[in-house]
């Protein structure tokens, strides 16, 4: 079976993408598999200036999931371009994950990546706190989501723009439509669900940041529901994620309408999981007699 997936102008070898923040800059996984065999890699979130991230502890394990409050620690775009990008094997499909605190900075970042031949697409992380408006997130307000999207789109040149949606909203389709109307070429979802974990003995949160983002199998039902809703609400390709840990899970997301998927927490469970998943998805799809993803996608029966 042909594993190829077409995302507008972007062709992926297969539907398995590693999720931002869970696969580093790819380099960390080169010992464990062939990066060029993956559908794509979403790079760790990158900002204009380096960010040191949140105090520790930053992570906590929860039932079938985990919380993280990394705070987008990253080396900044300059250092990334100079010290990381050149070492990623040629032939690896790279998607830059953009993080900024203002639409203007998002635009700046987009312009920088637009000039990078090695970068195939831009993913815009709008699930970050908007410092200027007191804690509301870009991804929770359709107007702000639209502003960020168009700021990026204006400077992205020929790079397809994928907007990454937050699940912490009443109606995800409202934000989805806002992003698409503002020019998003595709959407990805879900980012993490806001959650907490506490220690009854120390009487402290297990995260220094108090609140963190929930990911892993625990969130899969919520993710599938939102991907299903969004694929029916917009016309652009949707990349689904949230709790994927098997080939069956990948097909579930495609069945409800996703063009491709991202795997996050699964990469921590075992560093070769993404590579093995590419093969397992192929085997499963063939065993089900699926001849192309276009044929299977969105065929959930009523």
């Amino acid at each position, binding site marked *: 079976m042909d594993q190829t997936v077409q995302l507008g102008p972007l062709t992926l070898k297969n539907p398995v993408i590693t999720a931002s923040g*869970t696969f580093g800059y790819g380099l960390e*996984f080169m*010992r*464990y*598999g062939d990066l060029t065999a993956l559908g794509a890699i979403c790079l760790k979130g990158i900002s204009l200036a380096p960010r040191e991230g949140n105090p*520790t502890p930053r992570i906590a394990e929860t039932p*079938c999931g985990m919380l993280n409050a990394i705070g987008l620690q990253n080396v900044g775009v300059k250092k990334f371009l100079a010290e990381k990008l050149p070492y990623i094997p040629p032939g690896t499909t790279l998607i830059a994950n953009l993080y900024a605190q203002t639409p203007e900075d998002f635009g700046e970042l987009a312009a920088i990546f637009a000039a990078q031949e090695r970068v195939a697409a831009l993913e815009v992380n709008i699930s970050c706190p908007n410092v200027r408006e007191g804690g509301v997130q870009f991804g929770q307000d359709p107007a702000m989501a639209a502003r960020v999207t168009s700021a990026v789109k204006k400077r992205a040149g020929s790079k397809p723009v994928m907007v990454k949606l937050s699940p912490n909203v009443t109606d995800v389709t409202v934000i989805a439509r806002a992003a698409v109307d503002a020019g998003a070429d595709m959407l990805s979802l879900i980012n993490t669900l806001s959650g907490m974990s506490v220690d009854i003995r120390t009487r402290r949160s297990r995260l220094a940041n108090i609140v963190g983002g929930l990911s892993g199998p625990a969130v899969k039902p919520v993710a599938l529901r939102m991907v299903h809703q969004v694929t029916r609400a917009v016309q652009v390709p949707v990349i689904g994620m949230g709790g994927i840990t098997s080939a069956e899970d990948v097909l579930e997301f495609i069945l409800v309408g996703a063009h491709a998927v991202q795997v996050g927490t699964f990469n921590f*469970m075992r*560093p070769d999981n993404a*590579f093995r998943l590419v093969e397992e998805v192929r085997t499963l799809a063939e065993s089900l007699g699926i001849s192309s993803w276009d044929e299977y996608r969105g065929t959930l029966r009523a």
Partner: protein
Amino acid sequence: MNTTQTPCRELQVLSCRPGTEPTLVDLVLSPPGWTCRAGQFVMIRPLDWGSELVWPRPFSVCDVSDAGLRIFFQVVGRGTRKLAGLQPGQKVAVWGPLGRWFRIDENRPNLILAGGVGIAPFVMLARREKTDNLSMLFGHRLDLCHYPYAEIADRIESEAMRQTTAADIAAFETVLSGRIKTLSGIGQVLACGPEPMLKVVRRYCLMHGTEGQISLENRMACGVGACLGCVGRTVTGEYVQSCVHGPVFDVRDIDLGE
């Protein structure tokens, strides 16, 4: 995927002995075929774990040879409780060796400071190092017979101190301080143990100007440098990943939040 490229192995449990003290477990897995240095660690996740516990667990390599990969661990929570129940023949995903190791200076005295299960990495060190310039001070809570202490004491000069009361702990600290002071300018310490002990070690190293290396045990989701969960804070205020830049650090570099 090129399998010779991946150091992620599926090893078989050869033995898993909770011993007479059931909270301390000696686990031996089939030989992974790695070379490895004392202080490095592996990530472990049994194949049948399902997904309730999403993370693998990090453990120091206690020893590795043709006889297998040995891990010495303490049961402290859900993951180690499940690991303690492993049966021979079960399969475990293991990747490593990971991180940086203890660096011995053969020309000067090297004093191991081990606390509890922090003794694990030094089994391999004592077996491999031929130098006379290596000795150990071991602090422990349970009876000495439950730890691989004798294996080390057979090879290098060792002393053990049991801590059951507050007075014992104070006594241990006094000895620690004295030993660290003695090494000032002429040798180094290699420390692995619970965080309170590492803080004490660090305080005296700085106080007496003694060189030292400490192994940090930070929560880890991936072990390979991807999650940024395991970071420690340096004295210059930066976060460094303990899985790739540690777990063994220069005692002067790390801010333990004292």
